[in-house]
């Protein structure tokens, strides 16, 4: 019994240890995607440094050059980038 508990604890610990970096990878991919979207709209940004999820497909984005945008998918299926204060 003790051995099983030990094994389970070990595997949970390892899973938790590696779960954090995988979330970080997702986050980096999202930042890169949003950087590309803002650039596609011809807006200044440089690089997205922080992303806050406001709703599904709706993000508040902070750029390296201090610009802030709201990037979201509207009902018509268009990606909209709005400059926010």
């Amino acid at each position, binding site marked *: 019994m003790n051995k099983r508990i030990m*094994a389970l604890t*070990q*595997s949970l610990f*390892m*899973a938790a*240890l*590696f*779960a954090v*970096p*995988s979330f970080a*990878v997702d986050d980096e*991919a*999202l930042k*890169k*995607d*949003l950087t*590309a*979207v803002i650039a*596609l*709209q*011809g807006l200044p940004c440089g690089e997205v440094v922080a992303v806050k999820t406001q709703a599904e*497909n709706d993000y508040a984005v902070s750029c390296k050059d201090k610009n802030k945008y709201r*990037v979201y*998918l509207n009902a*018509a*299926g*268009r*990606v909209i980038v709005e400059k926010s204060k």
Partner: protein
Amino acid sequence: MTNLIKRKRRKNGGRGKETLMSASRICLVVAAALALSACAARRPNRLPDPPLTNASPVPTPASRAAAPATPQPAPPAAPRSSATTPAAKAPVPNAIKVAPPVVRTPAPVARSPQPPAPVAASPALDLNTLTKQLKETKAIGLFSKIALKNKVDDLLDEFRKYYQGNTKINLTELRQSFNLLMMKLLSLLQDEDKTLASKIVSSREAIWDFLTDPKKFATLET
């Protein structure tokens, strides 16, 4: 006495095996966790696929305004590669000894005669495959793909208006928009999906020919 020593040795050996077993178990757990994390890192985005409808295409003035200043008139047809390939392929049997000078000479000869038929450009174009590959590539994020599709829809809408005579935009301006869109697309692809980028580059003129031919363009509508 010797029996006692033997028993002790057996006990020690047993413990060693136990620690070995637990070490191997830890190794297994670490390996499994690594594999899991690798899978997690490779998993696709959570967002839904980009919508396929031509929804509310509102032309974006930004794309037009940012267009490069050098308008490129629509070249009559095929890129150099497609025109020269038949000629270049002919001397292949003697390629080892004679090829370098022979391959170089036909290129200018192939360019000088009358413009090649548009049929020569069409083999490079496979819109369905390109669309599928663009949807599947991991070089572009999902939001970027949707934004790109919006831009493509906008451009197609401009073409539609152009053919209907509902716009003041001329073909040169459409070419600028097309070039800008291509540049945006290639800038997203060129680092992480070079194969697709080169495919798009090679079919660029074929796509333009497709768009500027009203009959071919009409097939897009169906």
